[in-house]
């Protein structure tokens, strides 16, 4: 029987295999940020332990840094956390892209950008969206702080091998339908625990046709489907993305590595524990209406009413979500007004996301009742966008153009949505209170967020896309 890409990634990292024990897996890359690492470093210090392989660790601060006047962190506890990361990296000899670095950004944006993220690696980070790096054919997953400490001390983790799921997506996506809509559609149809206990391989022609940025968006939100990790087989697109990145192998070593990476595919006779087949043409622009990512519908839909529930428990959860979101049920999604638009986060803040959204915004104005912000995923994305004049398109339309960070995705800095107000957000979680206490989050793609900013309410982006620029048309799938 053949092996899946997941088997291959897993088996090549087993340090020790013993009866009645999980496998001891080697970790090739450990990404760190300021929120989930301080207690891990403190733990090392307490026991007088050192970091085993500081050269395989890489840190940045992203979660609670300001996106305006970034060196002036007003909140004392946030500042202490950032300073603590600086001190820990210095003490333990870990490379840090600090606030003053040209390479700083959201950890899941800069890993790939710098060529730290490579096919065949095992990658962990104290952050659930580490799944993003699976887009490169890496085995990448989020861990807690105890595990961060364990990896720092030993460069390994004890892991039981999860089950394996193949999610095959075939066919061409419709006009105005993006990778974000694909993953939202998947969660809407299969649920937030569809992937619990599994690693997913995303395969099929739709995934092969995706750019690396689109693949990252897809893998990023596999954690919202409960998956331990997700992975996409690396191909020529992966190799050419990785080539010439700062930390990627160079010249002959790169060519050798590519040969190795080409083996990272599921064999034709490999068997998965579960297979889901999706037809890309079924997918429409999606929008979440409730307080979990599975409470999600095509933009043409209506918000469900409590009487549609099939059980008492479902009715209760529906009622509580509707009440939090300020709905009665039955409302048309296209009638829902927004007060905030956030384009950013590790899901959708890469250059292509900003180019796509700017194509919708170009020559138009943000609705007067809307405050719209763009937070590039990294300072590099910001500079590249500025060199293309993308920032001007946004600014001319009335968007605020910010410095990079996690920002309004989770509102650990000042970028929060006030109680009772609504945000069209390109981020990944619409949990109650996520963007601020009482804030109402609707997850959408960058082009849907841009359309909402212009109209002041949700709207089917397909009705306002009218760009003639072929480069932009390629991005938005026209």
């Amino acid at each position: 029987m053949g092996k899946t890409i997941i088997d291959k990634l897993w088996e090549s990292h087993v340090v020790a295999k013993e009866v009645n024990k999980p496998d001891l897996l080697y970790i090739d890359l450990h990404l760190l940020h300021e929120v989930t690492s301080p207690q891990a470093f403190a733990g090392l210090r307490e026991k007088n332990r050192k970091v085993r392989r500081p050269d395989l660790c890489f840190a940045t601060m992203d979660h609670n840094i300001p996106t305006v006047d970034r060196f002036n962190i007003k909140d004392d506890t946030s500042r202490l956390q950032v300073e603590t990361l600086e001190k820990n990296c210095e003490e333990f000899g870990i490379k840090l892209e600090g606030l003053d670095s040209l390479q700083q950004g959201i950890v899941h944006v800069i890993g790939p950008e710098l060529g730290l993220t490579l096919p065949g690696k095992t990658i962990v980070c104290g952050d659930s969206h580490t799944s993003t790096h699976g887009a490169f054919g890496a085995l990448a997953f989020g861990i807690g702080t105890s595990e961060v400490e364990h990896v720092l001390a030993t460069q390994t983790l004890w892991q039981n091998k999860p089950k394996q799921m193949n999610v095959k997506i075939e066919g061409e996506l419709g006009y105005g339908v993006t990778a974000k809509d694909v993953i939202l559609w998947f969660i809407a149809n299969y649920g937030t625990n569809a992937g619990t206990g599994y690693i997913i391989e995303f395969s099929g022609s739709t995934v092969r046709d995706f750019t690396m940025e689109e693949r990252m968006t897809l893998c990023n939100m596999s954690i919202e489907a409960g998956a331990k990790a997700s992975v996409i087989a690396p191909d020529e697109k992966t190799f050419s993305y990785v080539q010439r990145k700062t930390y990627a192998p160079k010249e002959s070593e790169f060519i050798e590595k590519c040969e190795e990476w080409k083996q990272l595919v599921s064999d034709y006779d490999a068997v998965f524990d579960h297979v889901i087949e999706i037809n890309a043409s079924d997918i429409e622009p999606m929008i979440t209406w409730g307080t979990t990512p599975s409470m999600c519908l095509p933009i043409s839909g209506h918000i469900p009413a409590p009487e549609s529930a099939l059980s008492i428990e479902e009715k209760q959860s529906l009622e509580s979500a509707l009440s939090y979101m300020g709905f009665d049920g039955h409302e048309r999604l296209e009638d829902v007004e927004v007060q905030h638009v956030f384009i950013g986060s590790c899901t959708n803040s890469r250059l292509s996301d900003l180019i796509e959204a700017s194509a919708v915004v170009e020559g138009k104005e943000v609705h007067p009742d809307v405050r719209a912000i763009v937070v590039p995923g990294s300072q590099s994305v910001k500079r590249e966008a500025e060199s293309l004049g993308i920032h001007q398109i946004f600014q001319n339309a009335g968007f605020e153009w910010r410095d990079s960070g996690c920002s309004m995705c989770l509102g650990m800095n000042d970028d929060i949505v006030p109680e009772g107000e609504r945000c069209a957000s390109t981020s990944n979680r619409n949990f109650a209170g996520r963007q601020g206490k009482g804030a109402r989050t609707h997850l959408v793609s960058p082009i849907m967020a841009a359309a909402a900013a212009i109209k002041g309410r949700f709207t089917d982006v397909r009705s306002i896309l009218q760009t003639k620029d072929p480069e932009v048309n390629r991005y938005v799938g026209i």
Partner: protein
Amino acid sequence: MSGFKTHTGKAASLKRDHVDTDQIIPKQFLKKIDKAGYGEFLFFDWRYHSQGQENPDFELNKEETKGSSILITGKNFGCGSSREHAPWALKDYGFQIIIAESFADIFFNNCVKNGILPIRLSENEIQQLNNDRSDSVIHQLTVSLEDQQVVNELGDRFDFEFDPYWKKMLINGWDEISVTLQYEEKIKNYENERIVN
């Protein structure tokens, strides 16, 4: 960490599915750099109204659930963010055992690493645990990790599965890093063979 033996305690019921770690502990409380004192922020937005007064309707604010050490909940508990502050808050509040239909993977691991026992039972079994009582109070439960069994006051027994490795780690209260450091030779060999760089 002290080892996990048999535990008898009061159980509180939180009949909700998909409780995410943002609800268990909201983001504004993640800025500390130590592990202590998160209990007061547990379920903060559910426990307190906007102006800071206690929400009397929330299950854990009811007199009869005070002092609970076992939490019974629904599907997919602990989904979302990997923040270990969630189990730190649950433990600091007093919970030692969480019984749910299912757990999110990262949260499950985070519990085990902090000496909290996460137990998976079926929907029917959880219903049975919930039904033998009124509202949010359940009679006392006794949980034995050794026997992998939950017993209610009526003497009903509910077996649960648990990974043998983590069971041993929990029962003995071993420090996982110390255990792994004994594998140094193997780790070194692996590095030499693969030239990890």
